[in-house]
Every structure is written in C-alpha cells, then in structure tokens.
C-alpha cells in the first residue's frame, strides 16, 4: 500500500491543478460577428416625375428574438419605369456596416432574384459582374396597370457556380414584401 498513497496524491494534485479556478475565457460576443440586419430598396422614377419610394426591412437583433422593427410595403405608381437600388446594412455596428459593398466585391458569387405578383411589374437587372453576368443590386422596375400582391427578393450565394440561374446556391436574403401598384 505504501506506493499507492503518493500516486493518488500526485493524481489529486493534477486534478486540482487543472480544476483550480482560473477565470473562464470570455466567449466572443456574437454581435461582433457580421450580420445582415437591414435591406433597403430605393426607387427613383427614371423620368423624375413620380416621387421616390423607399422600402425597408430592419431586424436589429438578428435571427429570432424580437420581431423586425420595420417591414414596409412597396407602393409604386402605374406606368412608370423606376431605377431600383438595393442596400444591405449591418446596423448592429457603429457606424453601420454596408454589407452590399461586400456583395459587390464578390459579385461573381452573388445574384439577386425577384419574383413578382404578375406581368404588371417587370424587373430587369442592370448591373453586371466581371464575368458579364447580372448582379441585381441595381435594376429597373417597369410598372403597368394597377395590381397588388407580393414581391420576393432573394440574394443567392453561388460560390463558383454562378451561371445566372436562380435555383443554384443558398439564400443570404429571402424576403417577401407586400407590393401595390396604384
């Protein structure tokens, strides 16, 4: 038995050594991670007649938790051609981080897709990436008659597989806005 006592003492020593209270490491604050909190789409009449329209989705606490603060409907006028511009922001940062700039930097891997309620609104992407494929941060929205319904805006992340096909990749943004043309 004599040999055993020091062995167990040594082991207990190891035990306390490893478990002694050194302050736990502070985990990284998830708010320091990059987050898309806001999508803002601005419409400008190409002829400068109709007033500008701004629609915004804003969820400052990210996924889950509180409901979005803002989720506007898009209200456009009939028979007008709008130039639309999408901005993505991370508003948990001070100042807000413009994520859409990063999308533009990586335009070859990203594609905006739009699903419209009917033929009374026709959307055409107007910007192009280095491979001459469309991006969709900028687009024209051509309206005709009165209608209402939903428009779905998707940002597809298509690393290395972008062909212009919306079904490829995964969604970085997938939002449905109420829409009214009047």
């Amino acid at each position, binding site marked *: *038995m004599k040999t055993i006592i020091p062995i167990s003492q040594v082991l207990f020593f190891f*035990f306390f050594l490893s478990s002694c209270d050194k302050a736990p490491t502070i985990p990284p*604050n998830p708010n320091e991670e990059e987050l898309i909190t806001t999508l803002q789409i601005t419409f400008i009449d190409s002829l400068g007649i109709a007033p500008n329209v701004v629609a915004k989705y804003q969820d400052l606490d990210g996924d889950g938790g509180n409901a979005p603060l803002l989720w506007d409907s898009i209200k456009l006028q009939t028979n007008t051609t709008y130039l639309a511009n999408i901005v993505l922001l991370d508003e948990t940062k001070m100042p807000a981080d413009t*994520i859409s700039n990063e999308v533009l930097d990586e335009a070859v891997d990203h594609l905006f897709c739009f699903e419209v309620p009917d033929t009374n609104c026709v959307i055409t992407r107007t910007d192009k990436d280095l491979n001459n494929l469309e991006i969709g941060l900028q687009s024209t929205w051509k309206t005709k008659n009165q209608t209402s319904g939903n428009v779905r805006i998707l940002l597809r992340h298509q690393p290395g597989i972008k062909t212009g096909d919306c079904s490829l990749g995964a969604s970085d943004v997938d939002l449905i806005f109420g829409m009214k043309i009047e």
Partner: protein
Amino acid sequence: MLYILPYYNFMKRTIILLLLAIYSISIRAQINPCSLSIHGKILEASGGKPIEAATVYIKELQKGDHTNATGEFFIYGVCPGNYTLIIQHLHHDPQIEKIDLQKNIQNKIIYLTCHTDTLHQAIVKGSRLHWEDITVKNKLQGDELFLGSGLSLGKALEKINGLTNLSTGNHISKPAIRGLHSNRVLIMNNELRQEGQQWGNEHAPEIDQYIAKEIEVVKGAQTIQYGSDIIGGLILVNPKSMKLIDKPLAEVNMSAFSNGRALAMSTTLEANIKKYKAISWRLQGTYRFAGNGKTPKYYLKNTGMKELNYSAAVGYHKGNLEAELYHSYFTSDLGIFTGSHIGNLSDLYAAFQRDRPLDSAQFTYAIDLPFQQVQHQLSKAKLKVKIANTGSLKVIYGLQKNLRKEFDNTLATKLPDGSYKPALNFNLVTHNYDFNFEHKALKRFEGSFGVNGFYQVNEYYGAYFIPNYQKFTGGFYWVEKWHKKAFSIEGGLRYDVNQFAIQKWEQNVLLNVKHRYKGFATTLAARYQFPFVTVHINVGSAWRAPFVNELYSFGVHHSAASFEIGDRNLVPERNYNSSITIDFNYQKKTDIEFTLFNNYIHNYINLQPQLPATLTIRGAFPTFAYSQTNANFYGAEFSSSTKLYREIKLHVKTNITIAKNISTNEFLVGIPPARMEGDVDIPILKNSKQQLVWNIGASYIGKQTRANPAMDYVQPPADYFLVHGDLTTHFSLSKFPAQCNIGVNNVLNTNYRDYMNRNRYYANETGRNFYIKFRIVNKS
C-alpha cells in the same frame, strides 16, 4: 435462400420456416455405432466464464477439439467405449475425466481451476476490462474487424446486430444503438471516455479504427463502471494490451475502394526492449483518403476526406506492477456535400424536389468549402498494482484535446486576403481521473469499486452555437458478482454529481449561469446456463444531465435548415432499461441469439416543432425547441449462425426498434427502420497452408413507417435491397501469415436513399463499390 423478396412479413415467415427446416435436419439422431459424439463446455471453476482455446482430447484415440469463444467443444465419430478425456489450457490446471460412452453426450460441463499464481492473468484476456460476461456483449475482433476495416469506425460497427449509423454523407457516421446516439452512447477509447463535440449529429467519433484489437458493444443501460449516462449503450474500443507484447511484431493493413477511389493504410510496430523484457512499446499510424463518392448516376460534389492518425505507447509489466503511457493523435478533413448546404426551408424543399443535385461534379480528391477540420489528441497514464491477498488497484489519468473547425463559404467568414476563417470553432479539453479497486474473490463474490473524476473546458471562437463552459463530474460505484455453477448474478450502484458553469452573451450582456445535477444509477444482471441455452436477464437505470446544446442553443442549424432553441430549465432524463437474451448453441452447428428489450426514458429530451416558423432576413426557418417528454424504445433482435452442410454457414440477423413519445402517443423520428440481413460462407479451399472462403449476402432495409410526419420535412425514403459478395483468403507470404479480401458492395448498383443519412434530403447513396483489403503480420 437469398432471394429475399422485398416484403418484410413474407420474408420473415420464409426465413423462420427455412431455419426450422435446417434445424430439424441437423438435429436428427445418428445411428452408425462409431458416430457417437461428445459435446460440452469448459468453464472456469471460480467464475463460470467460458474458457476459449482449451484442448479437449480423448487419450486413447488421440482425437480432440479446441474450445470456441463460448467454451464449447465437439468431438464426433467415436465408437462406444470407456475413454479418458484430458482437458488442458495455458492458465489452468489440467483436468482428467473418465467417460463411459454409450450414447451421445451433450452439454457436459467441465470446470477448470486457475493456476494459483495467475488468477487474474487468466481472466484478463486481451485488453478486456471485465472478467466475465454476465451482461450480453457483442464483440468484433480478428477477422470481423479486418473485414469491416477501411471505412469509418461507425461502418465497421454495423456488423453488430442492432447497430446503425446516423450519417452525414458517406464519411461522417456516428454509431446509434437501438436508435439512440450522440450523448446517449458512451464510447470508451482505450479505457477513457471519448470526449469530442459529440452532441452534434454531424460530428463523428474521432477514433482511428485500426487502433482497435477488439471492439465490444453493450446495448442499453447494463454497465455503470464508466458513467451514469449510458442511456443508449456503450462501445469499448480496446487496443492490444501492452503486457501481451512479448516479441517483435509488424503488421500492415491496406484497403482500397473503387467508389471515391479511397485508400486506407495502417501499420503497427511493437516489441520488447531486448535487455529489459518488462518494457514494451508500440507505434501505430494510419493514413486514409477518399475523393468524391459516386451514386449510380452522378458524383457527389465535395465528398472527399483525408485522415491521418498515429499513436505511441510504452508499457512496463513486471511482477505485481503494470504501467502504461499512451498518446494518440487523430486528424481529419471532411468535405461536406455542397448539395446539402442550403439556405432556408424553401431551398430545402427545392433541393428535395429535384431527383439529382444541381451541382454537377467530376471526380476529384480536392476538398473545397464547406468542410470540417477535426483534431483529437488523447494521452493516458495508467498504473495497476496487484496487492497480494487483497486485490488490484488501477489508476488512470487521461487528457484529451479536441479541436473542431467548420469552414463555410459565407461573406461573414471570408477574410480580406481571400482565405476563410472557421464559421464554427470549438476547443474542448478534458481531464479524466479513474481509480478502480478490484477485490480478490471472496467465497463466491467478485467485485470492484472505484471513483471517476472528470473536468472539462469548452471554448468557442467565431459564431455562437453552444456556450463556453467548465464542467466537473465526479462519481463512485460498486459492482459485485456472485456465482454458483450455472447461475451468475451481477449488481452495481453508482452516484454522480455533474455541475457546470456556462458563459454566453445575451443582448450584449455576458451571462454566467451555474447548473448542478446529481443522481444514482444502478444495474442488475443475471445469467443462467441451461444445456444448450443461456438466458441473460438485465435491468438497469441510468440518468443523463441535459447538455449545453439542449439548454442554450439558439440559432439556425444550417445543415438541417432549422432554427433550434434550447431550454435552460430542462431536468436530467432517466431511463429504465430491461432486456432478455436467449442464446441457443447446439454442437457448434447452430448458434442463435434472440433479444427482447425495452428502454423507457423519463423526461426524454427531444426537439419538438414550434409554431410559427422563425422569420429571418434569409427567409423562414421551421423552429424546433428542446423540450421533455416520456418516451419508450422497444424492440427485438435476432441473429443466427447455422452450418448448412459441412463448413457452409448461413448467417441471418434482423432487428426492429420502435420508439414512441408516450405523452402524445406519436412515433419519434430518426429511428432506424427494421432491417434484415443474410449471408452464406462457402469454403472453397481449406488446408494447413491456405484457406479460401466465398461469402455472398444481401440486406433488406425497410421503409420507416413509424415516424411522426409532423416532425420531419419529407417522408422517409422507400425500402431497399442490396447484394454484396466477397472472397477471403488466408495464406502465407514469405512465411508470414497474410489475409486478403476482395469483394463488391451494392452489386446491383441500386439507387437508394437511407433514412439514417441526413443527406437523404438531397442525394442518393453511393453506388457499386469494388474493394480489396490486405493484411500481413510479420511474426518473427
């Protein structure tokens, strides 16, 4: 025999009828006067444990047999008369029995006594941790391990009835015992609790399969020496014991597979030091890699992997002292099938609607984003001292370091220089302390008691998935066994305390919460050996504290397209497990094992769907919250091995597990469907130098009809039928024993999806796969 029709009930009946027919033929009495036989069992006098590899021979005829793993021998073709039976075994005193043979002798039981000085040596076979199998253990060793090698550890375990794999693609597979997995299954890696991030469904155990000399599986709550939390079962991965190394030995293992063009190589070197025979060492290394897998119609993009492992061990063994130092290093890179990486629920439905993934792929070994990078280090120091007339004391200290990084192709993880930082990054450090004292046999009692201590620290970098935590568990246990001839009983009790503190951010506030749980676990097992039949009965109760992911997860689980919410008020779950196993063994010709089990889990922690779906800027995610209910898992297992004609053997196994949520009377999801497998061993050539065996088999996996549809996005896939065949040969290469196995899996190149593979939402399983495995041992 193998035209198993894909109708489960019909097939079950057919098989039962066929088996009955086979038995009635083989049991038929024999009439030739010189065709008498002697069948019996050699058991240990002190414990009733079967003795393997004992020689039993008739002195007058110089004719005999060796006992098998269940201690049985069978001598046939003997004329009536008086004979002397001599029984010998390395660690036991020889025994002489006079017999008067007039008719067939069946199930003669002969007890051998241990040499007095090697009481425990005889009992410790290989690196087995226990003396005796009162509980039912399923083992993989020798040829079975070789035949299952080359793929993951989980795949090798599928040879055991009742074991399936929860897999993610073709390389990430984690063992599920009777439908339970992850934190409910304990894996002991060389006597230490394997501590990785096992809470994750797509986190495979970080163990080199080639390290195992023997793998044992104990299903249900039957063991308490290793922990209180064995709700589903226990897997013991045992390397060869250091004290069994007595001469230089080199072993080389190689496997190559056509699908994924995979290759695995493993080498082991071991020896004693020449001048100090008491010191032995072993070095072992494995390298394994695979490229994109291929279904019958297309390649699976980014499904390659590579794995590099090594281990080193030094042992000292002299007199009453045994010491061991061990270190192992495991590292793997695993590609995640790009087709499975989807954004939200609409993406998932779109992926499921397609009959093949959109991403077209070619063959490549390159691993691209997304991928997992895992590293696991395990160190062990062990000391065992035998104390004369008292027992033996074992002390183990273990240190494990687990690093897991998951890389993802997202804007948030891309660094300015174009490289990526890990999206998830965990660092888990675990210290284990085990003390065990095995007292010497006192009359009919044998037993041991011990203390386990455990301290673990988890830290994460990058995105939040589970919080940082510091966990301490401590427990003590006592197990006793009692024997009288054919009857053995074992009972055990343990008490544990489990406490941890977590740190996580919530709305820019750092939370620090402490949790503490405690409780008893207990087991009781009995075994009775009738002639030809052994009955095992087991009851047990274990408990498991909720894990941090169940308490605190909050966020999108991308590979599952779900939003998961933990509940910090969960209480421990407790199970009540019972099982009965009937083992029928007839003259080495027929071996049948039949088990019925019931595992009731009180406060079963389960992910439940929650309405409404969580809306995020990336779309809608179905929401699941951890909650508690009462669940019952029950089912049956059947396996048999029968000599059809001479050495032609038929193996059949089938099992079913049914799992119900008792509170809602609904079936649980993710439970393996009923399955049935059969194969035939046909010896083609057998002489003293060579042996060639042809094996052909098939498996039928049913459709899981018992699953609550509200808990899953898509319905379980259809049933499927697979055929495999191989040739195994034992031969000598420059006097060294060698073994070669050539075969093909999924012979018919069947298109199918497996319910237990998470990639079933997106793609088919891999198709036909040719393989060759080779092993050579240099025994000098």
